[in-house]
Structures are given as structure tokens and as C-alpha cells.
């Protein structure tokens, strides 16, 4: 039973960043239930104070990874290192972490105050200090005055705040969150997500957040790790992942994409040029696709634009002509029009400015790609359904 204050002292004494308070390292962690393998030798390093999101479809192993870090599941192989110390064999109660469960797991027989007090009582913090810490925590999560209520008397959002307060009040080294906003409606999810980010920054706690909602991941994270089949497919900042998806899976998982295939004409230092039915399309490229091999590029719908056939534009160097296409359908989305186009390779989706001229259904148009937005992806992974 360490006192709450002790970890701070160890943090001050530790020289390397590896030992800094709130760092986590996952070393080749594998985990399996019965015959199925859930994690397959996963490596991951999380920096102190970072907000890292694990994003992936259900069954990709993200919750299992979180539980392995918390000590709720023992991995079959690999190590979990927190603040430079190997905690793999340590039971959860000795790891000094905070964990927010998807269903909050608030103790129904205790009041809000008693719930938040629980980790402090366990650590034998004196009553006066407990009161102070609880008051501070209630203030941070905005529940001052609600401390006498029972969890059943609170709304979903309030319960979520209590769960957060309870898992932060003992100043844990790392805060682990398992889809904590999943049970709430959209508006509340956004509001609480922002608040969660604020509290995490204010307390300077490292946070590992599990979700399958990409929008949530974008808004909250410093970095996002995309998980699939028990492995980390790609790790990077939200912008990196969106603009430079490593493979078709990541591309398809993070928003709608158009897939365009062509032959590699040349590989330059700045871009790889792909020949698509006669058009030259310069693409960003992190793969090692050989010249004259077939390549797949992804283009986001908002990076496509359409113009009447033959019309030229002043900003020619900012747009690359792709092909001609027929307009199959047009929907109004509010901020944009979504066009469904058919061309030589099947169908395309383009989100075009709602202010511009809307082409008629059946009309033939020229399709342009905004410069520097297309990127080549590894194509060995088949993407999930691109656009709906």
C-alpha cells in the first residue's frame, strides 16, 4: 500500500524519460483466450502526459491490451513496463493506475463521495487530506454538491464524471479508459470528450483511451494507434494517419476513401507519379512500390472536385486532372454536396462545395484531384467497404 505521494518522489529521482512518471512500455505482449489469440506480440511506447487512443474495430484486441496494462488480464508472453519498472507480474491493486470501465462500474451501495473516497481509504490517506482531495476532484469534474447522491440518482453523464473522478483522485500514474463515452448520446459524448481532455491536461496524467469511434479519436488524441487482429497497424498523430494512411485498412477505417489504381511511371524524392488511364497523378508515397508496378492510391472525397468538360481553371497547378466521369446521383449534406460518379474504374465519391454550381444528374464532368492529397498505400490488406 504505497502512499499517494510516494510515486512523485520516485519520479523526481528517476533520471531517464523511460523512468518518468506516467510512461508505459509494452514489450511483445501476447495474449489468448482458449484457442483464439487476441494479442500477437504487440509493442508500444507511451510518453508521460500523452493522450494515446487505441482505435480499432471490435475484436481487434484494444480492450484486452488495456486490461493487460491494468493487470486485469495476465499476458501469455511479453512485458508491461510502467515508469521503468516491470509490472507484468503485479496484481492490479499494486500498479497504481486509474481505470474507467465502459459501464463505469460505480459501486451502487456507496454515495458519490464514498465512491471517490474509496481509493484514498484503501491507501490510508488521513481524513482531512481525503476531504481536500475529494473537494478538489468534485470541483474539477463539476459535481460539487452532488456528493451525497447514489449512482442510481445520477444521469449517465454524471455517472461518467464520477467514474473519472474516482479513477483520478489518487493521482494514478496512468489513466486507462475503456470506451468511457460509449453509452452516452452523441452531443453528451462530444461535450464530455472535450472535458475529459481538459481534465487530463490539468492533471498531467498519461491517458490510454480505447474507442471504436474515429471522430472521438481525432478530437482527443495526441497520437492514435490503429489496432487490427491483435496488432498495431499504424501509430501516429491524427493528421498523419488521415493524410498518410499506411494501408487500405487504416485508410478505410478513418473516413470515406476513393481507391484509384494505376501504374507507377516514376519515383521521385517528392512524389511518385502514377499513370491512371493516361492522366499523370503525383502521389505521396511511403511504400516501396517498383516503377511500372501496379499501385493503389487513396483520395478522400473532399479532395476531389468536378468541373464542366473543357473548362480550365486559374489554379491549374493546384489541381490534377484525373478523368471524366458521369454524375449518377447528388445528395445535399449541409456543408457540401456529395456526388456519386461513375468512371472507367467503377465509382467515385466527391464532396464538393455547396456554394458552387451543382452538375445535373447524368451530366459528364471532369474530375480533378487537389495537389498533394493523393497517397499510395500498401495494397496487400484489403480495405473494408470504402464508401457507403
Amino acid at each position: 500500500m504505497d502512499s499517494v505521494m510516494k510515486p512523485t518522489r520516485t519520479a523526481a529521482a528517476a533520471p531517464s524519460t523511460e523512468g518518468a512518471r506516467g510512461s508505459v512500455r509494452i514489450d511483445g505482449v501476447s495474449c489468448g483466450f482458449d484457442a483464439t489469440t487476441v494479442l500477437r506480440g504487440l509493442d508500444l511506447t507511451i510518453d508521460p502526459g500523452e493522450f494515446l487512443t487505441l482505435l480499432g474495430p471490435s475484436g481487434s484486441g484494444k480492450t484486452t491490451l488495456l486490461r493487460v496494462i491494468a493487470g486485469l488480464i495476465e499476458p501469455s508472453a511479453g512485458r508491461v513496463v510502467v515508469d521503468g519498472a516491470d509490472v507484468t507480474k503485479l496484481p492490479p491493486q499494486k500498479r497504481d493506475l486509474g481505470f474507467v470501465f465502459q459501464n463505469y462500474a460505480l459501486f451502487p451501495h456507496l454515495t458519490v463521495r464514498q465512491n471517490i473516497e474509496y481509493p484514498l481509504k484503501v491507501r490510508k490517506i488521513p481524513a482531512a487530506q481525503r476531504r481536500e482531495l475529494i473537494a478538489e476532484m468534485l470541483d474539477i469534474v463539476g459535481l460539487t454538491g452532488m456528493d451525497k447522491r447514489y449512482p442510481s440518482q445520477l444521469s449517465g453523464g454524471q455517472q461518467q464524471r464520477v467514474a473519472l473522478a474516482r479513477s483520478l483522485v489518487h493521482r494514478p500514474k496512468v489513466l486507462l479508459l475503456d470506451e468511457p463515452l460509449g453509452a452516452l448520446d452523441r452531443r453528451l459524448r462530444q461535450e464530455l470528450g472535450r472535458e475529459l481532455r481538459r481534465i487530463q491536461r490539468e492533471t498531467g496524467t498519461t491517458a490510454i483511451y480505447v474507442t471504436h469511434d474515429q471522430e472521438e479519436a481525432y478530437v482527443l488524441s495526441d497520437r492514435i494507434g490503429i489496432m487490427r487482429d491483435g496488432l498495431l497497424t499504424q501509430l501516429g498523430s491524427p493528421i498523419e494517419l488521415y493524410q498518410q494512411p499506411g494501408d487500405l485498412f487504416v485508410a478505410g477505417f478513418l473516413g470515406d476513401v476513393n481507391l484509384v489504381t494505376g501504374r507507377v511511371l516514376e519515383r521521385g524524392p517528392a512524389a511518385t507519379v502514377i499513370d491512371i488511364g493516361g492522366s499523370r497523378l503525383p502521389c505521396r508515397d511511403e511504400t516501396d512500390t517498383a516503377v511500372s508496378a501496379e499501385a493503389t492510391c487513396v483520395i478522400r472525397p473532399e479532395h476531389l472536385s468536378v468541373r464542366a468538360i473543357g473548362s480550365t481553371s486559374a489554379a491549374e497547378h493546384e489541381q490534377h486532372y484525373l478523368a471524366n466521369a458521369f454524375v449518377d446521383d447528388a445528395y445535399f449534406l449541409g456543408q457540401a454536396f456529395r456526388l456519386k460518379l461513375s468512371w472507367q474504374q467503377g465509382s467515385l465519391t466527391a464532396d464538393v462545395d455547396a456554394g458552387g454550381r451543382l452538375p445535373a444528374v447524368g451530366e459528364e464532368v471532369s474530375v480533378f484531384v487537389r495537389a498533394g492529397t493523393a497517397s499510395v498505400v500498401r495494397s496487400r490488406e484489403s480495405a473494408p467497404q470504402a464508401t457507403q
Partner: protein
Amino acid sequence: MSTSVTPTARLAPTEPEQEVPAAGTRGRWRSATVGVAVVLPLLALYGIFLFWPLIDILLRSFDPLGEVSYTRPNFSFTNFTQVGTDSLLRIIELRTLRLALYTTLITTVLGFPVAYLLSRMRPRRASLLLLGILVPFFVPTVVRLFSLTVLLSPDGVVNSFTEAIGLGKFPLLFNTTATVIGMTVYQLPVMILILYAGLSRIDTNLTLAAHTLGASPTRAFFTVYLPQARPTVISGMLFTMVLSLSFFLVPSVLGGPRDQTMSVFIQQQIELFQWGQASAMGIVLLIITMIGYGLTLRLTGGATVGVPTTVAKGTSNREPLRGTPAVWGSRVVLVIVFILLLAPVLVVFPLSIGTGQQVVFPPRGFTLTWFSQVFTAGVWIPAFTKSVIVGISTAVLSVALALSLSRTVQRIRNRALRSIILAVAFAPVITPHILLAIGLYDVEIRLHLIGSNVGLIMAHTVIAFPLAFSIINSALAQSDITLEQAAWTMGSSRTRTFWLVVVRSKLGSIVSAGVAAFMVSWDDVVIAQFQNGLSKTLPVVIYSYLDSGVVPAVPAISSMLVLLVIVGLVVSLVVGRVGARRGPA
């Protein structure tokens, strides 16, 4: 989930309008009349075979001589004063209380670890073990008691074992120890089922949350798990206590002359035609039982402070139990409980093949003559036939009445009226069987029904109906009204819809209600022993042999009964697995 809840919630208030179509007041009147007509047989049954016997006993309890007069009833408290002050009676009462208390404590101590382990197992394995708990539940009590008399006898397995390891022999039969063991064996399945139902609703994430917050397993158990489990444990204990207080069969078979309990005393008094004190004691038992059930209801109904436990994700169910000493201790208890439950059931097989006129374990020699004697002795076949006829009639009648009442109750929008009806419907459960037995005995003598199958069927339907009703009512309460409405829009009449949509979709529950009602009748000795005419039911015949000395045919018929239960359970499992493929009804 929430999307499917809202439409039904919105439907509920508009439902009365749909109940009564354009016909107006006349339609309203007609449906009310139909409602009353449908419940009329049930009212008659309860009136004649439940309330009349109870009033009869109540009047006798107030008569100093225990006589009953409906025109000039006596009101004296002599009998009750004696029940409270007579030193012999007080010894009996305190003994009954003590026995019930021991039984409750032992049952809880053994039942909790087992229920806990079951609640943490994978559902498949848990249901397999629950089956092992259910087998003894379906074997007639007299059979299990017979086995216990053999196992606990001076030359029985237990004493042979203790002698072999040098502890010597213990007097285990016809005393308090035997009674407590017998009552524990009887109550354990019920206790485990009650606790299992409650404990499996506790969110395992709560304990995990306590761990992540820094609590040790012991601390998490006492500060988080136990507070969640407390209402279930207390209601299980109260239920066991109340049931144990009015126990008749176990103390009568396993207890010695000095282990007379209140129920045994009542039966012995009636055999001597001494109605006064027996009636007063029966009424006292009834009042204690009512208080006990009242407490249980309050505990389970009112004291649930808690968020609606949302079922956690699959990971928590797979959360393996760590091998702490407490878990290992629980596993040991699990083994002990299974030996306690299954030994009395399985020992009948070796007993039934032994040669010689004495029933001993381990058996000497090998013979199948006792099985053939069952078919030739002339006492078993008629008893078996009578039990089957009475049991099936009870089942059919109970299910029919349960369907009619359930249908009527669910149309009643008035909450107070509905809870009154439900309370009355469950009244036989609260009534100690010995009290009902003597009341029925008296009433059926007046009606010249005593000894007839009809009389026994009516008596058994009274005690079996509440069980069938609770199963069917909860099944019909879950039936989706929109299914019926859909059928109406397709032109199906109400009667037709009821049979083709409602009854068909709940066939599983209706069958289990029938089986439950049959089992109540099949197991009963307390009421049936007062209804002996020319023929007796099977359990009563076995019981009379237990009283007067066991013949070797008893283990033979017992093993056939156990075999019947095992076959029945296997068949129901197979049918259930086939039925499950159709998807949820």
C-alpha cells in the same frame, strides 16, 4: 436496446382502447363477464380447498376442545395459551426453531461458495453443474430420506469410514444430527438456486474496479462484493428458515422420538383426534411463515439501491478466477456439496441389487429379484399408477388455471387489484403444508372426498398451482403485445390468436410449468398421508415402509424413480438444445 423499449412503453397506455374495440359499453361488460367466468373455477378451488380448510382450523384453534361449529363458534384462547406456556410444547417449539436455525446456517455456509463459483463459471459449465444440483431436486424426498437412513445407519458408509480411520462410530441416525443433515440436503438445491440467481447479476467489473483502485482481493470482497450480495443472501436465509420451520418429513423419518418438531407434533395429535392444540400450533406456524415471507419480500423488493446493472462486455465473463486460498476452499465445499446431494440419489442403485432381507451398503451378492418383486408384489403398481394419474391431472389442471388467471391478471390495469389477486394466488405457498393437510383432511371428510383421486387432485392442485402460475405469468408478461396485434391485423380472431401466437410461442414455459406442478404432486407425502383411502400414492407407500421397516423392494423402486429423473433430464436437455436452434421465442 433503448429504441426497442420506447415503443412498448408508448404502447402501454393506449392498450385499453385496443382491448375494447368499437363495441362500446356492451363490449366492456362482456369482457368483464368473460374475465370473471374464466377465473370462476379457480375461485371455487381456492374457496373449497384452501380457505375453507384454513377457516376450519382457525375455528378449531379457538375451541378449547378443538371442535368446530360454524353456527356457534367458540372463541377462547386456551389452546394458544397452552402453545405459549406448556413446558412440553415450548420444548418442541424451541427445538423446531433450533433445527431451522442450524439448517439455515449450514445451508448458507455450504451454499454461498458453491453459488459463487457457479456464478463465475462459463455459462455452459455452470449449467452442467446446476443439472447435478437439480437431479436430487427432482428425486422424491422420501427416496432421498430412505438413502440417508442407510448411509447414516450404525453400519452405514459414514460410520464404516470413521471407524476405519480410527475415530470410532457415531450415533448418526434418529437424532438431531440426522435431522439437520436431512434438512440441509433438502434445502441446499433451493438455496444454491436462489443465491446463484442473485450472484450472477452482480457486475464482475465492480470487483475489478476495486482492484484497479488499489483494494486487495479480501478488501474488495468485503467492501464491494458482499454489500451487493447481501440482499440475496438474507432472502435466501429467510426463505430456508421459514421452510425449515414447518418441515414434517425429515424430522419424522430421520429424527428420534426426542426430535419431534411442531409439524410432527401436529400430525401425531391429529392421529389421536386431538385437534385443539394442533390447530393452534398450525396457526402459529402460519403467522411465523407469513412474517418471514413478508420480510423476504421487503428485502428483495424494496432494498435494492443500485444502478441497473448493465451487463458487462464478454471479457468479464471470461475473467478467470485466480487460485486464491478462498477460491480453493470454495472448490472443496463444492465437492462436499455434490457428495451430499448426489450420494443419497446414487446409492439406491447398489442397494437395489443386494441379496438378503436386510438393506445394507455395500450390498452383499447380486440379484435382480427385487426389481421383479416390484412388478409382482401388488402394492407398487397401483401406487405408481395412482401417483401418475394424480400427478398428471394436477399438472393439467394447474396449467389450465394458471393460463386463465395469468391472462386475466395481465388485462387488469388497476395496480392495487392486481397485487391483491397475486397475493391471494400465492397464498398456498405461504401456508405450511401440515396445516393445509389437516384442514383439507377435515373438509374432505365432510365432502366425502377423502380417499378419492378427485380429492387428492384438488388438494395437490392447490399447492402446485402457484408454482405453475409464477412460471406461466412471467412468461406471458414478457410476450410481446405487438405480435398479437400483428395477428389481429391479419384477421385472426382473439381466441385463435391466443392459442396460435401466445400459447405456441410460450410452449416451453407452459411445459415446464406442467412439469413443476407434476413434481409437487409426485413428491408430496404430507398432504397425501391424510388422504389414504383404499389406495396410497407411491411416496406415501415408501414413507410407510420407512416408518415400519424397509423391505428390499424399496431400493429397487427408488432406483427406478431416480433413473426416470435422469432420463427425463437428458431428454429435456436434448429437446432444449433442438429448441434453442429455433432462436429466442
